[in-house]
């Protein structure tokens, strides 16, 4: 399973690495991702403690969260994607449907009426 990522990394030509180096930013998100992967791989913590650690890990500024979800999706790290999507679900659960449509810029509004 790591072969795909390994291949992806190996196929990046050296000069392309130079052009990616634009942003320290990317390294910041990568740092978070690596931190997550290392923690989940270490098997040193109990399940309950790991869950608590996950909650702490996902408790970040919404922009970091957005970046994390894109990275987790791009790199297809399912458990991290689960965690971040769960956190986003948590952040939006209290909103009204109108607020959701506005937030995500959803145009196709349902004709279905909601009782109040």
């Amino acid at each position, binding site marked *: 399973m790591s072969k795909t990522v390994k291949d992806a990394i190996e196929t990046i030509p050296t000069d392309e690495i130079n052009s990616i180096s634009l942003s320290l930013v990317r*390294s910041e998100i990568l740092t978070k991702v690596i931190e997550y992967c290392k923690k989940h791989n270490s098997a040193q913590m109990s399940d*309950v403690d790991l869950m608590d650690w996950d*909650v702490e890990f996902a408790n970040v500024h919404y922009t970091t969260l957005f970046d994390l979800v894109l990275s987790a999706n791009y790199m297809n790290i399912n458990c991290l994607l689960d965690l971040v*999507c769960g956190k986003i*679900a948590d952040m939006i659960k*209290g909103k009204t449907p109108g607020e*959701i449509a506005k937030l995500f810029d959803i145009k196709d509004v349902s004709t279905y009426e909601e009782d*109040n």
Partner: protein
Amino acid sequence: MEGLAMLKYLISQLHQLFHDSSSILLQQQQPSLPTTIFLHPPPPTTTTTRWTSFDSEEDSSVDDCCDLVMAAGKSHSFRISEPLKPPPAKKPRKDRSRGKSLGRSCSSEVMEQEIWKDFPEDLFEAVIARLPIAAFFRFRSVCRQWDSLLASQSFSQHCAQVPQENPWFYTITHENVNSGAMYDPSLKKWHHPSISPLPTKLIVLPVASAGGLVCFLDIGHRNFYVCNPLTQSFKELPARSVKVWSRVAVGMTVNGNSAGSGYKILWVGCNGEYEVYDSVKNSWNRPGNIPGSVKLPLSLNFRSQAVAIDSTLYFMRSDPEGVVSYDVATRVWTQYIIPAPLHLTDHTLAEYDGQIMLVGLLTKNAATCVCIWELQKMTLLWKEVDRMPNIWCLDFYGKHVRMTCLGNKGLLMLSLRSKQMNRLVTYNIARKEWLKVPGCVVPHGKKRQWIACGTAFYPCLTAVA
């Protein structure tokens, strides 16, 4: 230059990590995703507040109920109405701290559309599958696409992947035997569907559950019904080939991880008669007779629900004291003789993470306490691992108490009743946490309901009976 060195280091670290790791699945990269990422300073992290393990506040009589109205109209169109009265102004201490730890401070003004309008559409299903059930029903009016999610195969797969931490409880109350009341322990809320998922002429009792579905048996022990309490998905099972009028114990398992791949229901009677229903074939089957190694008559403990671990169902028996198990995959019955703890009453089986447990009342002299035991597999003995806090047990001192255990996997709901008292408590096996449950009050009612019976179920929006 420093940036390049740092990036190179990180890439080598990543390379190293994925080379060594064996637990994280990575698939082929998708070329269509954005590759630009914005920099923002990391926010100061807030400490999460852990719930107190014991709520000393008496719950007020103001009802906490949320009226869920689920009407079957067109397929997949449901209405949900929020309570007419505003929520109570003062929330218990626990709710306030919980709100903080879940990031309630990230309100709509903080989540800027600037960022979120670029949220990839293919990730919406993953997020929606993780919403609380009540929020899901509310958000169906956001757009047509979200409205049709219940019918979507991919959404169903997302739902199946979401690990359900806490089950809900489907209960039948003494005063309202025709429709159930459902309890959501994560929000500590009772829901009263005003339209029952079951036909109202029947009086049925929940006897087992698996994969988000609940199995009901009518009060005459004749017919079985399966239903998803959250949606209108309902099925009456075909008649059994054996007419059994006496009481039976019932167990339910799913094939695979979710009810999507089908389920099996087993009933067994004291005389050793049993049958297995397979949802894929929609028929009952009699795989053979109970072997001689299982002593008959089978004095089943009907207060105890069957426990399912993978494809094996476990039932409690007495005379001799112990457990009998049936593996629906191998079709093998096994008997385990396990001496019961002394002075034990109202006991039921439970399970957590593959470990079989026992819950029961221990009465010595005039003192009664709720105890939890674990089964030691090597010695086949029960070992006490926890007790209800003393201060709660004192409430029952000198009183004759009866206990019903609803749910038997991970989170248990215990209904403790004596002449003047009716207590509802949940116990989290993993966290060894005892919590009080707010009283079950019907909407516009004031009287706390008594729970007659019930079962836990893991809420799954897409489980189909």
